[in-house]
């Protein structure tokens, strides 16, 4: 079931340009999200893993911007800025945590942290 009507950027004013539609943006966004997920699941270095979550965040950001453009309002844009801010805070947190962890274990391998289980 298709859900969104093809509302292209071309229709919204720039007729001459190649038709990059909302779907393209959403597709990229989805792919980014998927890359983030797959990266998170498959990589063992915690820094990379954190970057993957960042990619997922940015995938959402991309979708938000695209939608914002679609809807002709700025809520999405505002949202993206907020997301970026939060992501920055999270990154700071992640950095601190990663350093802390590295100090304790001398490694950033995610598999090192599996004492608690069951």
């Amino acid at each position, binding site marked *: 079931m298709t859900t969104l009507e093809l*509302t292209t950027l071309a229709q919204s004013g720039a007729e001459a340009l190649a038709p990059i539609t909302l779907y393209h943006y959403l597709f990229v966004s989805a792919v980014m999200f998927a890359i983030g997920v797959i990266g998170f699941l498959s990589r063992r270095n915690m820094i990379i893993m954190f970057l993957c979550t960042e990619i997922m965040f940015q995938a959402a950001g991309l979708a*938000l911007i695209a939608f914002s453009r679609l*809807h002709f309002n700025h*809520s*999405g844009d505002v*949202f993206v800025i907020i*997301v970026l801010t939060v992501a920055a805070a999270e990154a700071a947190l992640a950095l601190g945590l990663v350093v802390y962890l590295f100090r304790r274990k001398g490694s950033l391998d995610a598999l090192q942290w599996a004492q*608690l289980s*069951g």
Partner: protein
Amino acid sequence: MIEKLQLLHPEIALFITTCVVMILGLSKSYTLRKSCAIVTAIGLVITAWLGAISPTAGDDAVRGALFPGLLPYAKTLIPIVGLLLLAMLSGTVDRGLEQSVSRGKIFDPIRATRGEFYAFFLFSLTGVMLCATADDLIWLFLALELTSLPTYIMVAMSSRRLRASEAGVKYFFLGAFGAAIFLYGFALIYGAFGTTNLPEIRVAIGAGPVGAVGMVGFVMAIVGIAFKIAAFPMHFYTPDVYQGAASPVSGFLAFAPKAAGFLALMMIVGTIGWSHGAGGGLPEEIRTLLWVMAALSMTVGNVLALLQTSVKRMLAYSSIAHSGYMLVGLVVGPGRSDIANNGVAAMLFYLLCYGVMNVGAFAVLASLQKRAGEDGLVEVDTLDDIRGVARQYPWLGWAMVLSIFSMIGFPPLLGFWGKLMLLTSAISGDEIALALVLAVNSAIAGWYYLRIARATWLERRPEHMDAPLLTPVVSRRVVALVSAGAVVAMVVVIAPLQRASARAGQPDARPSLVEQIDEPDVSPEIEPVAMRDSSRDEG
């Protein structure tokens, strides 16, 4: 717009407290440092008071909010449970540092974490409270993140043991993963309806279909937020994190993010509305989603708890299960106005019950420590550790027993009435099967809860084990007793509590499409409606 600021008075109060505490914690004066907890407590009391007088249904400030009556309830409940949590959390950090300072070492603000710890705690609570006020996806996202981010650190810094670090790692990474999911969901919701304002989205949805993008968005949002409430399928982290973190922090984790998550879910699901289909209720997909999540959360949580020997892990799994119970309320929705039929009210009431009894159980654990080889004194964890506690520390033992029996849902304790409300709402919402799942799960849960209760109350300490010692923090013991007492005492005043929760769980019931025209500054709204129409044509 300015009158809307009064909605934030409690949060503002909390924020001010946070700032004060953060600074106080760095003070060279021991007395001032020590006053952090007191100041926090005062802040919480003020917040609670402010929360109690915050606008409620009928006030202009909350006109158009999804749950206009929610604020006083949530913003009183959260600081009050926060007080209990605070009493439990005090003394968690900096104990070694303070000891060395008292031995004459010079105080080094860099190494002190006390102020930050309380500040994080308050930040997190602020986030929880903001969830209740949120009427916008952005706001909701911010509030959720504000709740979570500090807790990541609290977990990691709660104890010097490696397991705390491990808990921190897991919590943080999985939390970020979950946040990304609901964020993406939020993005899709925005995409589908063209606005981030929840009441507007609600108007857009009306009683009609949600649409595919919106549906995916809602699913992702709900599932992502499920991380906060530790519900299936985002429950995996719970036992490890709860076990790894220090008991007070685990107790905190079992309440604050959960409350935030449920308030957020309330908003999200409330946006969709319980007025779809012939007999009312959620759209079938969302209902199924929540249904499955509820049933599986209960089952997975209870079932996995059966195998545990660690009390904290059991409580963690039970926390998953309790989330499942509360989700039942969301599935049912507010129903008719009657308290007995209002699932959301039941959920909110249960949140209160759970907060109280959960604090009781964790506070008992937090009050006890044992000697363990190289680690020195560590907190108690396994069943063996707490065996026979009631004979040694009768009050603590009884506190544990009462909290646990309340969690079983044993009459006449608080948990029973919580569960009773969930059951009545589920049954009157025609969710009989879910009610039965709930009933059977309560029975399964009985098995491990009984093990805890039996171990503390009726059994003897194994010969080879040392007796557990009390932690030097008196407030934890006090809070254990207070919670246990509340589990009993609140039964007496249960009627007003339930009324309050019913008011809080009552959604704004204006006929959406009529009001929509009155609503100012919603000019771009025509488009999404049209978009949905066209998509419907296509489909």
